[in-house]
């Protein structure tokens, strides 16, 4: 509301002092405050229970839980680590164990809690890595242009010539199997998307008037880059990163499922599904719950990504 009012006020500003007296910058907020409290609360309630906001809230809750699991798993699970109860093998859900137990007698719920860390680590680190590297490549290509642009974009083309999973597979093939290398492999396949989008963005920002102004004023190139180009390129990175996070978790879980992930703990939801596959005939819960968890996280992240896009790139709505 306040936004609407100030934009109406803009034409007035041209006749000088009058404008600042006529419309206070707080005008919009004052109006909102004058509405009765019960009206505002009803509006608030309507907003919270609107289906879109409800789904958004649910998604945030899912992500919050998974991040908490990853940070302090011992708070959520009775065991300090996933312990095996050899006498309680393959228990169905809703018995003594909430989600049942697997073939080693480990509680599925505890496995989900302790598996969150690897999923979150892969999601966060791989996404951060590909976002930083890809963005730098894209901005460098777009802002510097010329031969730099050529070389960088050819590299990106090569990375794009392979579906993401294969790119990750090559790196997994070449590196010893541990969590860090899995993260690197997942991160590499994310790079080209950032590079392409940010190159376009940097090209656009480079043509803006304030960049020309800074150049004319004799501001150093690296300063223009740091102060003007980079901050104005960041919105699409956040949106891409939100979507990339879910994709990174899926690819990480897929590689782990294929037996190409770390051979030692931490537990991985994908590896859990692989180990339970042989029991799917009778004991469906071993594979069902980890898969449900991955799906929930990916949907939550996509909902959040859509919301971010709507708020940060109004033009693409």
């Amino acid at each position, binding site marked *: 509301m306040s936004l609407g009012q100030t934009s109406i006020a803009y034409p007035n500003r041209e006749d000088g002092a009058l404008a600042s007296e006529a419309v206070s910058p707080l005008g919009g907020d004052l109006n909102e405050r004058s509405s009765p409290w019960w009206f505002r609360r009803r509006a608030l309630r309507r907003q919270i229970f609107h289906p879109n906001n409800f789904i958004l809230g649910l998604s945030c809750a899912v992500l919050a839980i998974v991040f908490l699991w990853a940070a302090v798993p011992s708070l959520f699970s009775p065991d300090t680590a996933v312990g095996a109860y050899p006498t309680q093998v393959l228990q169905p859900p809703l018995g003594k164990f909430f989600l049942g137990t697997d073939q080693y007698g480990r509680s599925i719920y505890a496995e989900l809690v302790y598996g969150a860390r690897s999923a979150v680590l892969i999601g966060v680190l791989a996404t951060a890595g590909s976002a930083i590297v890809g963005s730098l490549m894209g901005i460098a290509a777009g802002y510097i242009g010329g031969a730099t642009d050529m070389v960088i974009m050819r590299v990106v083309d090569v990375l794009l010539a392979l*579906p993401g999973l*294969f790119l990750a597979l090559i790196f997994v*093939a070449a590196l010893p199997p541990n969590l860090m290398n899995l993260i690197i492999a997942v991160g590499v396949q994310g790079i080209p998307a950032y590079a392409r989008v940010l190159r376009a963005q940097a090209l656009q920002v480079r043509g803006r008037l304030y960049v020309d102004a800074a150049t004319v004023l004799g501001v150093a190139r690296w300063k223009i880059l740091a102060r003007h180009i980079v901050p104005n390129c960041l919105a699409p990175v956040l949106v891409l990163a939100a979507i990339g996070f879910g994709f990174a978790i899926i690819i990480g*879980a897929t590689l782990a*499922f294929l037996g190409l992930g770390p051979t030692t703990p931490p537990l991985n939801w994908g590896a859990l*599904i692989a180990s339970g596959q042989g029991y799917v005939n009778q004991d469906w819960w071993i594979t069902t719950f980890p*898969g449900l968890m991955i799906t929930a996280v990916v949907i939550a992240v996509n909902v959040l990504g859509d919301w971010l896009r709507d708020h940060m790139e109004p033009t693409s709505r």
Partner: protein
Amino acid sequence: MLVGVTALIFFVLRALPGNPVVLLTQGDPGITQAQIRHIEDNYGLNKPLLVQYGTFIWHALQGNFGVSYLTKEPVMSSIGAQAGATVELTAAAVVLTGVIGIGGGLLAAMFRDTWVDSSLRVLSLFGSAMPLFWTGVLLILVFSFTWRLFPSSGSGTFSELVLPAFSLALAGSGLLVRLVRNSMLDVMGQEFVTALRAKGLPEYQVLVRHVLRNALVPAVTVLGVQIGALLAGAVVTETVFTRQGLGSMLVQAVQNKDYPTVQALVLIIATVYVIVNILVDISYAYLDPRVRTTLTK
């Protein structure tokens, strides 16, 4: 671009730690220096990296990808033996993806803002968010063990193809349903559709012959990109359903660090991917005559 891919594959695999000689000898501790040198000689491993790369390219151009470290057989002949199953699976999945995606999008657009539309939206959201390997496991659970309709593993017969192709198609068609729906609605808002209805054309002809055809251009792009994803998905699906094929071959090669096989498979897949993308570009001209005129100008 493909040359770039060869360089990428080759140097990443060679420059990173991991010694092929260890693999070739199965880590035999009693091996002598002379034997190591003999093996390196045989496989050309003692030459400079650039020379090795040159030989690799030269041989690859002649269709020779060397000998598998693992089976000691020429890589190309094992690939030839396995390729059929993968082609079969991918082709079935592409057709199914197209049918589900376009059919679903058509339905969603025809019944927009009804329960049909919203349930299709939820389904497509799940379809694209569910990890492919989990979809496969669920399908096995429901269709092989609970209802006993289709076998859970194996390759060759038609009934063994159903579940893998379906699990691949489910993952690919989620995006396509939403895309076809939105572009159908875009086209339906245009004036020529009103004109067609005004002249009394039956609604299904308006939708299928005119609206759908116009809405297909973006769908074909996505389907083309999806073929890459389906190829990648074949790796997963073949493993889940223990099928034969290039995908499960690649996973085994990666697990065993069988570099010649990995190189050959990745290169072939990249080539197919690039060719498919070119074909998609060409298909625009067929679907949208406006593209054709700009091309000839």
